[in-house]
């Protein structure tokens, strides 16, 4: 019995200590779309250096975050790969008024490993039709904005029906990237922001022209339930600043102000 009591005491102590660690204040909790994985890391680093405020980022699919926030998930800031989700949250009255901001426009590329048999930079769309490409990784178009863009672009290029059987679906854009980066798929349609990341930089890529798919308008908001509103706003301001935008641009994000090419009719 004494042994049981001792084990219980140790476990309870561990539990109390762990709570102490996780309950530390003064930090911004950010939910970020998976395509921001690398850009956000750098943004956070710079912001933390400047302000001394700690930023905690959770990456995932925007749709997932959206349903979590509808159900009361306690984040301070939300960077969504599709501005529709923040807009819906705003309509539901969950957003701090006036904070909705379109921080970037996403770009998509066809990416293959460096040792691929086809040269995507030269072949473009034809890469996907090549016999050596058995599987093509895309994000799930049912709920991932990048997946919708990929499918729309394939349809616009007129090859969707021919490559449909080759498609495999990642839960979010990061997983789609991981499927092709690990070699299990031979090509993928991924976010430019991931294609330029350290692990994928060495592969080959071809940017899908922006007019081939609906614009990937990315939006951020501060949540009404934010515990640390001031710090959350400060971080959002930092992302809007010249430094913040430079970092986003470096990771392959475009900006809404840039006039998009008019669609030819």
């Amino acid at each position: 019995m004494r042994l049981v009591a001792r084990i219980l005491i140790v476990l309870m102590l561990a539990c109390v200590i762990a709570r102490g660690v996780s309950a530390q204040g003064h930090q911004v909790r950010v939910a970020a779309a998976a395509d921001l994985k690398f850009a956000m890391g750098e943004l956070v680093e710079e912001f933390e250096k400047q302000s001394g405020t700690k930023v905690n980022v959770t990456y995932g699919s925007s749709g997932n975050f959206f349903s979590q926030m509808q159900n009361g998930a306690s984040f301070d800031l939300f960077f969504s790969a599709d501005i529709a989700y923040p807009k819906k949250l705003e309509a539901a009255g969950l957003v701090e008024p006036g904070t909705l901001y379109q921080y970037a426009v996403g770009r998509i590329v066809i990416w293959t490993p460096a040792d691929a048999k086809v040269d995507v930079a030269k072949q473009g769309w034809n890469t996907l039709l090549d016999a050596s490409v058995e599987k093509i990784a895309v994000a799930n178009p049912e709920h991932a904005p990048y997946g919708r863009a990929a499918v729309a672009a394939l349809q616009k290029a007129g090859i969707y029906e021919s490559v449909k059987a080759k498609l495999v679906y990642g839960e979010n854009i990061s997983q789609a990237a991981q499927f092709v980066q690990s070699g299990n798929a031979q090509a993928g349609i991924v976010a430019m922001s991931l294609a330029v990341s350290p692990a994928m930089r060495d592969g080959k890529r071809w940017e899908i022209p922006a007019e081939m798919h609906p614009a990937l308008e990315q939006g951020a908001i501060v949540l009404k339930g934010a515990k640390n509103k001031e710090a959350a706003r400060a971080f959002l301001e930092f992302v809007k600043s010249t430094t913040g935008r430079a970092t986003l641009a470096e990771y392959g994000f475009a900006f809404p102000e840039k006039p998009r090419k008019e669609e030819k009719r």
Partner: protein
Amino acid sequence: MEALWLSMKLAACVAAILLLIGMPVAYWLAYSNWRGKFLLESLVALPLVLPPTVLGFYALVAMGPRGPLGKLWIALFGHGLAFTFGGLILASVLYSFPFAVQPLVASFEGVDRKLLDASAVLGAGGLRTFWRVILPLSLPGVVTAAVLSFAHTLGEFGVVLMVGGNLAGVTRTVSIDIYDHVQSLEYGAANRMALVLLAISFAVLSVVYAVNRRVWTPWPAK
């Protein structure tokens, strides 16, 4: 419903394979006197404590064209193992391994050693003793192993998510389907599927506990 059917098919295949592999492994674990046996016991139990992300990650890398398994598979069949039903079976067998082996070990160990000795004295070899004495006496354990590995595979999510690629009719199991519905905010569809899965899981577990009941009367005698 396609997803549910697929999950059932996967679970049945996995349960069958696990029984076949599990029985020799469990036999060895139950009767070996090797000093280092605890190491193998730990290895078998690993999937109980490892997160599906670890299993899924290694499975994905191993199945890739640069992984040992992927290389072998491509050489044999000409295509990769990830995103296929076969790949899913392999990952699930690893994932549900302890759920088959542990009940088998427990029931094999529960067989009275005197009966084994008697069988040996009467001239039966190891295999014959296993078939005629151990297995009949371990029937509840075998049923438990089969049912638990079936149910555990049915409820598998993380590993399938990591190696499946979400292909309708091939790797989109019922748990992935439910997840997709929730992500797409189709709570009604998610709820219907989830309820069906809940009912099936309850029924399946009821079988396990019913088989392991000591008293076989619906109402206890007064």
